[in-house]
């Protein structure tokens, strides 16, 4: 693969809205991605292999729980810093960003927000250092967009719980050391349980032959009468709102991340079209190509402003679920469109692994589906503005 020349677009001087520290966070993450991810990622994606050597580096750079307080092994950074890190990591690859999102927002966040002090001390530092890799089990074979219908359940056996059921499409599952699993108790109320590798009856078969997120491992979590110690139940919150609040945090990161993928596609197409000559001039000189590029930078700029504002609201504790849905949906939509247009601008070269565009495009097909499908986010906005739910 050609060397990574990425420069981030900043058409509206949005950098002026960032602090020097934010820029340092972004540039450090970008430097790390250029050094560690760009040179190897195409090969791993082509082979559908998980680049587990990156785990240590991701932990070192601080991509696991950047906003978790330092006493639990995080970096204690703000939400804009978290967003910028996700932008830069997904600029490299959505699969690598997925690994970080799951670890930070879906595993560390629920343990931090709803876990007991002992759970926080036991798990968070190891998750931050990459010694433990986590997964998040909400989706089931028959309950995707409608997770409230889940059938995974546990029974109280007095001194422990017994967990039964199966989760599907779970990122990091095949290699996870711990899984935050959402299951119903005997009264049908959803609770989170920390299931650890090695517990009897707990297996994690891998899902093969994905055309998307090939450098991220996806699998099932299968629970066959798994004995879970009582101290592994997350005591702080129950009900569907508990896992959904984790999704808020992850979706927020995706809103920034997908924008990173869009920026990479735009940057690649811009550079290529200025160099590629046809009919005696650079293809960037043709109106049809300029229309594509001009629309791309317009959409990127709008999305940059949106996620920046969302980050500010999130720092102030004011971002709503519906606002996060809108940004996640928008960023993924523009990223997918930009990836498709950019791919065409590269002609035949655009379908090869020589350039990152087609990998982004295929990755984004997962990103548009997980963490709430494109349709579901529209329904969330619809319900929010009309006050009428249209899910059922």
């Amino acid at each position: 693969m050609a060397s990574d020349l990425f420069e981030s677009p900043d058409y509206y001087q949005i950098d002026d809205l960032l602090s020097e520290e934010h820029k340092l966070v972004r540039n450090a993450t970008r430097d790390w991605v250029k050094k560690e991810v760009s040179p190897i990622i195409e090969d791993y994606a082509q082979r559908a292999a998980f680049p587990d050597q990156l785990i240590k580096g991701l932990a070192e750079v601080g991509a696991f729980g950047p906003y978790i307080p330092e006493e639990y092994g995080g970096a204690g950074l703000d939400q804009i810093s978290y967003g910028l890190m996700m932008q830069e990591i997904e600029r490299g690859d959505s699969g690598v960003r997925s690994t970080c999102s799951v670890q930070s927002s879906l595993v560390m966040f629920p343990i931090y927000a709803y876990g007991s002090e002992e759970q926080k001390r036991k798990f968070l530092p190891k998750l931050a250092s990459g010694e433990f890799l986590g997964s998040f089990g909400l989706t089931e074979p028959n309950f995707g967009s409608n997770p409230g219908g889940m059938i995974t359940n546990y029974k109280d056996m007095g001194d422990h719980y017994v967990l039964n059921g199966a989760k599907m499409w779970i990122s990091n599952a095949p290699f996870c050391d711990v899984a935050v699993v959402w299951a119903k108790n005997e009264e049908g109320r959803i609770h989170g349980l920390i299931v650890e590798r090695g517990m009897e009856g707990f297996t994690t078969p891998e899902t093969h032959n994905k055309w998307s997120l090939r450098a991220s491992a996806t699998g099932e979590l299968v629970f066959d009468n798994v004995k879970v110690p009582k101290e592994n139940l997350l005591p702080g919150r129950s009900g569907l709102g508990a896992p959904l609040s984790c999704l808020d945090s992850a979706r927020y990161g995706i809103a920034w991340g997908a924008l990173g993928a869009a920026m990479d596609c735009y940057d690649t197409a811009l550079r290529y079209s200025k160099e590629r000559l046809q009919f005696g001039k650079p293809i960037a000189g043709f109106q049809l190509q300029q229309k594509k590029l001009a629309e791309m930078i317009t959409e990127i700029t709008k999305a940059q402003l949106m996620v920046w504002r969302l980050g500010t609201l999130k720092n102030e504790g004011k971002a709503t679920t519906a606002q996060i849905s809108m940004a996640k949906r928008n960023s993924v939509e523009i990223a997918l469109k930009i990836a498709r247009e950019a791919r065409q601008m590269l002609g035949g070269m655009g379908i090869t692994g020589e350039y990152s565009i087609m990998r982004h495009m295929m990755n984004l097909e997962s990103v548009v589906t997980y963490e709430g499908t494109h349709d579901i986010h529209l329904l969330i906005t619809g319900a929010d503005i009309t006050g009428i739910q249209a899910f059922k």
Partner: protein
Amino acid sequence: MKVLVCISHVPDTTSKINFTADNSAFDKNGVQFVINPYDEFGLTRAIWLKEKKGASVTVLNVGGNETEPTLRKALAIGADNAIRVDAEPSDAFFVAKQIAAVAQEGGYDLIIAGRESIDYNGGQVPGMVAALLNWPFVNACVGMDGEGPEFNFTREIDGGKEKLSASLPLVIGGQKGLVEESDLRIPNMRGIMQARTKPLEVKAAVDAETKTSVGSFSKPAPKSAVKMIDAENVSELVQLLHDEAKVI
């Protein structure tokens, strides 16, 4: 051991270079600044001295407050504290005077600067600092080992390498080789957080004259168009080299 690392704040190597309307100064508009790459090798070497020998590492810049993000980055990478001498770095002698004053006042044993900075490429400051302090100077330094106070150094010289030794206090003009590119550190998030509370002291400049002043800058002439001549047509080539290029 107290190590003072000189950090210049220079345009990123990919920046587009422009000058102000009267060509008297570099136009900083829209330019990204970074730690001078030669200084970054020195900074990393200093961090090794900290990690392996318990040295303290201070980073120093002579410049306006726009250079503070560069110093914060050096702190995030691992320096203990930073000093900024609040003055326009107008010429090499002026800057060297400032560095020498800080070194004397702070009781440092080792000054690591870059062999040159990649903005104006003067390459004079570390030599002048050594002269002002009357310390040994190891320029174009590509290797350093030993336990101290005596160290063995390797220098790059025309067509080869020179090995020498010198004792603290001394000044190094460093470059790649002091550490390798793969040794350079990317700040991590915890480092960035810690850098928030590390001291960054702003000092007033000491009196010093400037010995040079800039006249004007100009860019190299743009490349002219390439003329293609048929491989068979040697006589036309000769004629053009003679009449147009005037090289034969």
